């Protein structure tokens, strides 16, 4: 078990830059996701850590071991691939025992370890089956077992749940996470599914076009996105352009087409600066029209989703706001309502 440190990692292919200046520290036992749309460089980063790609520049350290130029088989990693990559010509036992065999362990000692790891992934008794006899979820668990049995320093997962159907994915998410917590292995997990990364990770690293936009806890990323791209990628967001009037103690007053907003912010912004405010749909509330509130609008769309209701509200100046509310009170389309914004949930971007 060791920590993982990626320093100034850059990788270019034939003139195109896949990842640029990636800096990331993963603490021992931490579960970190690399999250982003396809092509953002998250898989490239993972493959550099695995040794399946050689970085153009930068360093990768496991603990204080510099592994940047080390061959994959010397790094002591465990990797789980998207399409499982089980050896079709070997039984489950042989698949799982492969890593042990490469390290010189065979026979009854190996057999014991194989049994115990199969137990861990709840596939006891599957030793003599063949990969093609197993379902997708079972194959994925075997892949996990195969990677973990050698007790590697770092566990790497490349979108392992992408090929599973939705229900199975939910189950496997919890399974992988609880397993990881139990063993306490340093884990780097690549996914494009934000719900997945939110439920599983200690920290999320959001990447776009080869660069890290933000690294932080799921709450951090959600409530206080660093860039517009992050805000739009995670959940829904209302992005409202405005001008800063006044700022003090991390709260900025912003003049926007829908009124004056009080936004939390990390930056020090000059009054008069143009900026974007972000409010999540669930941070707004609709009440029957009342004259005391400043903001009102007409509901133009309404989607009933069972436990929640999605609204689109058009304000006087033409802005369409996305508002989400619990399904207990339902407003009708066409209704004129007042919109109340939770002051603690408005956030200033860039």
């Amino acid at each position, binding site marked *: 078990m060791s920590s993982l440190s990626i320093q100034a990692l850059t990788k270019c292919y034939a003139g195109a830059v896949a990842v640029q200046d990636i800096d990331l520290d993963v603490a021992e036992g931490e579960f970190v996701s690399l999250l982003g749309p396809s092509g953002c460089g998250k898989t490239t980063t993972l493959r550099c850590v695995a040794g399946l790609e050689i970085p153009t520049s930068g360093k990768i350290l496991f603990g204080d071991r510099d592994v940047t130029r080390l061959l*994959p088989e010397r790094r002591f*990693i465990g990797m789980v691939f998207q399409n499982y*990559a*089980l050896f079709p010509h070997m039984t489950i036992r042989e698949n799982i025992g492969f890593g042990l065999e490469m390290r010189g362990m065979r026979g009854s000692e190996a057999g014991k370890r194989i049994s115990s790891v199969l137990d861990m992934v709840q596939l006891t008794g599957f030793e003599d089956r063949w990969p093609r006899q197993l379902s997708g979820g079972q194959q994925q668990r075997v892949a996990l077992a195969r990677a973990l049995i050698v007790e590697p320093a770092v566990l790497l997962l490349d979108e392992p749940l992408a090929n599973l159907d939705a229900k199975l994915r939910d189950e496997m998410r919890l399974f992988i996470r609880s397993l990881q917590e139990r063993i306490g292995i340093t884990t780097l997990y690549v996914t494009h599914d934000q719900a997945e990364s939110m439920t599983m990770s200690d920290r999320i690293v959001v990447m776009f076009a080869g660069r890290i936009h933000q690294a932080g806890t799921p709450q951090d990323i959600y409530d206080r996105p660093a860039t517009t791209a992050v805000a739009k990628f995670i959940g829904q967001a209302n992005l409202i352009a405005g001008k800063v009037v006044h700022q003090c103690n991390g709260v900025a007053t912003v003049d926007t087409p829908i009124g004056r907003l009080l936004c939390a912010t990390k930056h020090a912004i000059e009054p008069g600066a143009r900026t974007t405010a972000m409010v999540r749909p669930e941070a707004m509330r609709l009440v029957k029209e009342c004259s005391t509130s400043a903001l009102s609008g007409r509901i133009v769309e309404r989607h009933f989703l069972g436990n929640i209701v999605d609204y689109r509200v058009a304000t006087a100046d033409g802005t369409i706001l996305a508002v989400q509310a619990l399904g207990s009170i339902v407003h009708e389309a066409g209704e004129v309502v007042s919109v109340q914004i939770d002051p603690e949930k408005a956030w200033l971007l860039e």
Partner: protein
Amino acid sequence: MKIVSAGLLISVAAVYLFLLLPIAIVVLASFNAAEYLSFPPTGLSFRWYSAFLNSPSFTSAFFVSIIVGLVAAAAATLIGTPAAIFYVRFLRRRREEFRLAILAPMLLPEVLTAIALLFFFNQVFIGTQTPLPLILGHIVITLPFVFLTVSSALYNLPVAVEEAARTLGASSWKAFRRVTFPLIKSGIVTGAMFAFIMSFDNVNISLLLKAIGTSTLPIQLFDYLRYDFDPTAAAASTISVGLTMVIVLAIDRIYGLRAVRF
């Protein structure tokens, strides 16, 4: 619509008949008791097979074909398999050029290649007095088949499986030996079998490169058919076809005929 479909099926059947009839005729002729084939056949006999077995020119030609075929197939496999691995897994630039180069012997007219090699061996070597030019010519002509078959097998093997082995601690060589090779074995064997068949049936190269006094079975048949004509040739042909069919069946069992793409 039904008329069109029936018409289609009839024309398809007719074409199949066209394709297979001549071969069937030869096989039939080999069992015919009479000297020339007539319909209805006069009787069944194995006399032509015993004539074949008793003919030193035919039997020696048969053996030469088998041995040359085995040597050429083995050599082509040993040379072509690494080339296919190189092409599919390692080579990133100028891939089309490499592929065309290896496939060249198959794409160029065989007659020309035979002429080219005839000149070459006479000028650079002692000509065709030894079996070496013949064997080398066969290796050259069968190499593309091995290359194509093994490449196809490699394409069907996802890289992730090999990478998984590497992440589990296997060196490149170990990963090849324990994972890649077992999974492409059937493709390699199939390529070797195709190479054998192509060598066994070959005429153009054998005609120009064979040593005086030796002959391969197709050449022997060719000479026979130009001047003489008796069903011993039919027996020899049927044995050749039989051998080919057995190999093709083996290929289908091991690899599956439909997986073969040229």
